[in-house]
């Protein structure tokens, strides 16, 4: 079974936006390695020809009519905001793309 390394945990933490501390990386790497070792059993069925189940119910085509429902007021929408300005959510500078 493939194990999981400390570097992989660090990479996953970056993808998941978790600023893990060094000691957490070590701790989690060990635990996750154990957990993955145990749950990897599922791959026993990987080559079985059965459809994957993404939903426990066989429902399809649940849709709503294109009718406007009341929105929250801007005050309600912003009520939990850590910071706001000009009726907008105020967030720190974004490093992403221009």
């Amino acid at each position, binding site marked *: 079974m493939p194990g999981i390394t400390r570097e992989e945990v660090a990479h996953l933490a970056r993808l998941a936006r978790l600023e893990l501390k060094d000691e957490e990386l070590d701790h989690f790497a060990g635990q996750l390695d154990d957990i993955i070792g145990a749950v990897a059993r599922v791959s026993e069925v990987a080559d079985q020809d059965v459809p994957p189940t993404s939903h426990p119910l066989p429902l*399809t085509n649940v849709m709503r009519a294109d009718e*406007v429902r009341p929105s929250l007021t801007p005050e309600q929408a912003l009520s939990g905001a850590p910071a706001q300005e000009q009726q907008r959510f105020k967030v720190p500078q974004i490093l992403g793309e221009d």
Partner: protein
Amino acid sequence: MTVTELMSYDAALATYDPVMGLEVHVELGTKTKMFCGCSTELGAEPNSQTCPTCLGLPGSLPVVNAIGVESAIKIGLALNCEIAEWCRFARKNYFYPDMPKNFQTSQYDEPIAFNGYLDVQLEDGEVFRVEIERAHMEEDTGKSLHVGGATGRIHGASHSLLDYNRAGIPLIEIVTKPIEGAGERAPEVAKAYVAELRELIRALDVSEARMDKGQMRCDVNLSLRPHGREEFGTRSETKNVNSLRSVERAARFEIQRHAAVLSSGGTIVQETRHFHEEDGSTTAGRIKDNAEDYRYFPEPDLVPVAPARAWVEELRSTLPEMPRVRRNRLREEWGVSEHDMQSILNAGAVDPIVATIEAGADAGSARKWWMGELARHANESGKALDELPITPAQVARVAALVAAGDLNDKLARQVIEGVLAGEGTPDEVVEKRGLKVVSDEGALSTAVDDAIAGNAGIADKIRGGKVQAVGALVGAVMKATRGQADAARVKELILEKLGVSEG
């Protein structure tokens, strides 16, 4: 900004063969968002059209907008696609502050429409087939306002302000297969494709597809390969190219840039690029390394979409005539050249002309007014033709007044001016401005007599057989009647009184 080396376009094409991929996002014109009942009306106060679902509040859940699905199917059918019998939404996971859930609800390996094509017509009439890979449903993001930097740019901003009114508005993403074989016409094909797609979206009435309002946005992917090579080169992805002209310019720029890099022995970096409207250039954005991992998986909060075949066929039967087919039909009916038809299309005059003809005008005059007087007005006022304050029915009424001899062209122009100025209907303008052609034979007869008496020399010439001199007398009558006489009738009267017959 560093100056980008470019190779001349001709030299680039002499060595390389361009391959393009176009990704177009269309905002649907539904009343509500894709997964919640918030209004999509433009111009609302910030964060006034949000709810737990489109804000991504804990506990909220999505429900699919039926018209969103219907529109997607219509677009798919119009693009000659197969429509999935069963497909799902997926989550595309990545963090970005304008995306409330930090995943986009989109479609991944099961798009609702796939494997189609769109035939586009180039300016000279040549038809080029663009193959469609897929059209899928997804949702838009919120809008960020970057504060503290230079003119709203993200770089140097101290913070950003987010408005989620746009978050969750339905988008259809339409992706072409690699467009090969266009050669030097690649930029033209790109532009024609986006233009044709826009016409089609409008004909389907699923969106206004206004590129200037962000309702239609295009990404241009481009790569070069040396002539004769099969495999594609590394591509660049130029994001958010938001006008037809820009699509053409972006493709052209990237061809020249890639060629310069490749022929100097460099390699193209797979990256996103930003297009600059001012000079038509592109600059490097984010490098697409393999760290990007969207971890797509089927959206567990939504159930599969399985459009019944009967429904799909019903939608197919309601599809309008495709724009290119319609244009060619109209071109023949109206008897205009390819070139003139292209001008009509570019002016946005096709639909107004059709509506004017439907309101009773003949094709020639409908075309004349929309492409002449009205196009000039639109140009001057910076409006689209269909935004002018005159209806096709009113234009048809003006044409009818002309045909009946109640107005001449000069008066008709004044009537149109009056309608545009908000003075009322054509008939009201005629009434208020007193613009009727003088048809009182008695008054006209007197005016003609006066003109003959006042221009005896010219009258003699006419009597002597120089019939073409009649124009001067007609002019005098028209002047005397302040243009309100029917010039043809005036001419008739003069000749009659002078005892001369034409021809």
